[in-house]
């Protein structure tokens, strides 16, 4: 067994197994006169040292870690292999982050304590950011929390579920404005935030494509629209629109957006009384609409929520 030890980039095996066997690309071992080989134990030590030191090209390491993208346990193990593995594993370990406001202690506070410096926290690896209850995340310390929110500058999907949490305090979406310039998709579940606040948030993301509203079944949902100054520009909204619940006021505001609607897919699950809203939406998107799904629910059939989940299967 022989080993050429050179620079990291050129270090490679070029010998046989020491037993005289032949392998592809490896010639038979030949004893050179005057050359003495170190004892086996010493050669094994060199082998172990070589194995422990990371000599694979970074592209190969990336491929290995990419292959493990959906195995968090393996990624955590990779994270402690070498400092050079940390960034490429964090890319997947922190790709999806969820904050639960009511899980004691508040997970957002835990994040801040774990990564005290926003500038070098793994927040920039996050692609999908979810808030379950926004009150604790934004209302406690607005100034410092704002800088923390800004650290999530590469988020592509934003999920905000504050349905039911509004009663615990005034919820503000303002600190999420412009969170990430690359944001493509928003899921928003709420039941009483004024549509003006919702649409100010939406209009702060110029590349936004997909919208998903879960608006609850309360007839009073978002009825207050007074005083909203329509922004001068709105996102391109070329992806999918999903709306669930009492959609009337939200649909009306969507139709008022200055740059129009260009959704290619519309999926609506609403009371029958809201058919006019669907007609408006379809009319606004008639030039781009490719897929339309309409699920009416009966007032006595809220339990048929499985119809909604089944809709993904259908279309």
């Amino acid at each position, binding site marked *: 067994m022989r080993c050429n030890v050179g620079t990291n980039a050129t270090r490679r095996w070029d010998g046989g197994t020491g037993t005289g066997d032949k392998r592809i690309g490896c010639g038979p071992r030949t004893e050179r006169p005057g050359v003495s080989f170190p004892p086996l134990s010493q050669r094994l030590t060199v082998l172990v040292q070589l194995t422990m030191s990371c000599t694979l090209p970074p592209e190969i390491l990336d491929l290995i870690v990419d292959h493990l993208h959906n195995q968090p346990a393996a990624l955590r193990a990779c994270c402690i292999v070498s400092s050079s593995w940390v960034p490429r594993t964090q890319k997947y370990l922190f790709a999806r982050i969820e904050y639960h406001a009511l899980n004691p202690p508040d997970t957002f506070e835990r994040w801040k304590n774990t990564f005290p410096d926003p500038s070098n926290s793994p927040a920039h690896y996050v692609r999908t950011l979810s808030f379950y209850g926004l009150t604790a995340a934004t209302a406690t310390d607005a100034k410092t929390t704002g800088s923390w929110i800004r650290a999530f500058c590469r988020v592509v999907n934003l999920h905000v579920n504050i349905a039911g949490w509004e009663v615990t305090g005034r919820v503000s979406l303002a600190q999420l404005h412009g969170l990430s310039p690359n944001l493509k998709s928003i899921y928003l579940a709420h039941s009483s935030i004024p549509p003006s606040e919702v649409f100010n948030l939406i209009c702060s993301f110029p590349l936004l494509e997909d919208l998903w509203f879960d608006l609850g079944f309360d007839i009073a949902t978002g009825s207050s629209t007074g005083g909203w100054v329509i922004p001068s520009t709105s996102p391109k909204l070329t992806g999918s629109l999903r709306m669930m619940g009492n959609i009337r006021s939200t649909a009306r505001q969507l139709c008022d957006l200055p740059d129009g609607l260009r959704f290619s897919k519309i*999926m609506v699950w609403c009371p029958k009384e809201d058919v006019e809203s669907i007609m408006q939406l379809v009319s606004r998107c008639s030039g781009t609409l490719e897929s339309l799904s309409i699920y009416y629910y009966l007032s006595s059939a809220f339990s048929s929520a499985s119809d909604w989940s089944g809709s993904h299967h259908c279309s």
Partner: protein
Amino acid sequence: MPGTPSLDLSKATKLKDMVFSCGKSDVLWITTTIQTATSKNLQQITVRLRPDLLDQIGEMVYQELQNLDCLLVQLWVSRSIRPNITYQTGKGERNMRWLAQGSLPKLAGRGFINALERR
């Protein structure tokens, strides 16, 4: 939905697929809405039968279902728009299958009625 105007899909020229949930008061509305769709890209129309169809549908709804049956088969034959009628498995599955096959006989005969597994 008696008295509810149908959706006008005549300007949706890129429409490829449509999905409707169908209760006993929606059949006529779905039929008239489908009739407005003129997109040449239309490939599939899915109608998901809701369990409330099992309540005493009466002669009128039965006739509306027959009309829907004719329309969807006609679209399949003339424009190759694939119909897909589904109902959920589980409680009432047998009655729903019987209803679907009885009121949509042409679609049933062509194998376009399928049970949808509840997830």
